[in-house]
């Protein structure tokens, strides 16, 4: 049973001052997020990532389609007792302290006063706000507010954690801490859904990603499969290569670039990789490195979004049918 399942999820907003007309911001989204996975929602600004998350949390309502959470209809408010949510650019009450807010959040989940105190202290320590816990939130920096946002999303020890742009406003150290936190959540078998437009974050963390652009799903799949299928070439670096060998490689159509006593080869075909290695062994040439040049998520993203051309049609169809 998927933790989150959306079927034909569509959202229109009314735009215009006098004559309202619908503007589609999410179009027939079919997704299934499985238990225990880290799922990334990727896309540029305005792609529909936050809209999707707000629909899941019932902060906005779908124009069409259905959403189920933990196998039940999403309109049941009690389901949110198992969800933690960090909104994009979170904001808190100016005059409350971080500790007060976390206790307040705990009370909304029905935690007993003692449990609230314990969770608040533990989370403040975990996100590095323990020393400023009694200062009003209005004095916090953007990074500190983001940390408090993360803490309040975890106050109920949720089974499903939804984070909207969790790295936003954080310095490199903070981003690393959030990355570690997401990995900790994964290790604890929690389901994590997060949106981002920072692709290296998704590359590091996600088991599967959905790529959105202008409200439409452009790609969906396991990240390792997307990246593995995108091996473009293999880069081989050799040392002390004799001139005769270079000629033989050139005859075989393998491009070589000499830098000092090293030669860098860009080999497109797997069969050719074998041929190069065979020559290297036979000629007792030192193999310095051999690196598969993979399509990065960034390449995939750009190719999908910028050119609007499907990269792996067959793969997508397969994944989309899984989503349905």
């Amino acid at each position: 049973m998927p933790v989150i399942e959306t079927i034909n999820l569509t959202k229109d907003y009314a735009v215009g001052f006098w004559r309202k007309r619908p503007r589609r911001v999410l179009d027939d989204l079919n997704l299934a997020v499985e238990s225990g996975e880290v799922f990334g929602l990727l896309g540029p600004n305005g792609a529909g990532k936050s809209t999707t998350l707000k629909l899941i949390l019932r902060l906005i309502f779908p124009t069409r389609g259905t959403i189920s959470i933990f196998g039940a209809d999403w309109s049941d408010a009690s389901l949110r007792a198992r969800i933690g949510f960090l909104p994009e650019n979170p904001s808190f009450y100016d005059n409350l302290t971080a500790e007060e807010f976390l206790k307040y959040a705990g009370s909304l989940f029905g935690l007993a006063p003692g449990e609230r105190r314990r969770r608040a202290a533990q989370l403040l320590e975990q996100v590095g706000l323990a020393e400023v816990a009694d200062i009003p939130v209005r004095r916090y920096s953007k990074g500190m507010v983001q940390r408090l946002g993360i803490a309040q999303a975890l106050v109920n020890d949720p089974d499903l954690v939804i984070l909207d742009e969790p790295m936003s406003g954080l310095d490199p150290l903070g981003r690393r801490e959030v990355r570690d936190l997401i990995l900790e959540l994964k290790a604890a078998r929690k389901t994590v859904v997060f949106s981002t437009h920072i692709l290296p974050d998704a590359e590091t963390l996600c088991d599967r990603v959905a790529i959105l652009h202008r409200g439409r799903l452009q790609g969906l799949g396991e990240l390792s499969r997307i990246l593995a299928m995108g091996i473009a070439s293999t880069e081989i670096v050799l040392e002390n290569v004799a001139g005769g060998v270079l000629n033989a490689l050139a005859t075989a159509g393998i491009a070589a670039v000499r830098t000092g006593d090293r030669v860098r080869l860009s080999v497109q075909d797997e069969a050719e990789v074998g041929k190069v290695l065979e020559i290297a062994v036979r000629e007792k040439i030192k193999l310095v490195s051999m690196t598969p040049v993979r399509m990065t998520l960034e390449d995939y993203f750009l190719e999908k979004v910028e050119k609007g051309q499907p990269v792996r049609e067959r793969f997508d169809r397969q994944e989309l049918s899984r989503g349905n």
Partner: protein
Amino acid sequence: MARIGSIAWHTFKEAARDRVLYNLIVFALLMIGASILFGQISVGIEGIILVDLGLSSIAVFGLLMAILIGIGLVSEEIERRTIFNVLSKPVRRYEFILGKYLGLLLTLSINTGVMTAGFYLALFFQKRHLSAEDVLPLGAIYFILLQFAIVVAWALFFSCISTPVLSAVFTFSIYVAGHFLSDLQFFGEETRSSIVSGLTTFLYYVLPNFADFDVITRTAHGEKISGLLFTANSLYALLYVTVLISAAVLVFEEKEFR
């Protein structure tokens, strides 16, 4: 129920630390204190002037607090996106509205309590003693609180459907109109136009009739408030607030938070 209580308590905590509120309380206390001076230049009616001005100060500054905080109750939460932190948790929307309303009512009650203490301090300063008849102003203060309860319900309702500025204008207009409903109805009848007359009669029944709650002058002259008026005003306020909060909940249930 616990969630409503928690939202109310934290609404109170947040509002109680607002500096604007303290400024208004200080102004109110200054006005109450100044009414002692006005009393001294009004030979023979010092007590009447003190009660009249003191209670009016409580009513005016309390109203300002009710409008200033009330209009931001929901719209500011949406504008500043703090509402995402609450509604993404297992909180029903009606619980949020009720909690916010009760929180502000608690804030206003405590502020009115502080101003009442200031008023009695001024009364004691003037008379050098307090007697049984000095309990009378408490009835007027109770009616002032009932008016606040209705005003805050309007402010909350407008806050759900409009911007803070417009909410303030609408709420203040309703408060003012609520004190002149009889005049409004009389005006409608005098025009001899069935449309205008129908409209003013409609407004007479729909808008809150605050004239019955205004017993400040009567109290200042030592007139007792009847038990019937206490009961009628209490039930009227309860019914009015219930209808308004229900309307606010209906609007809020359908509201989207982008």
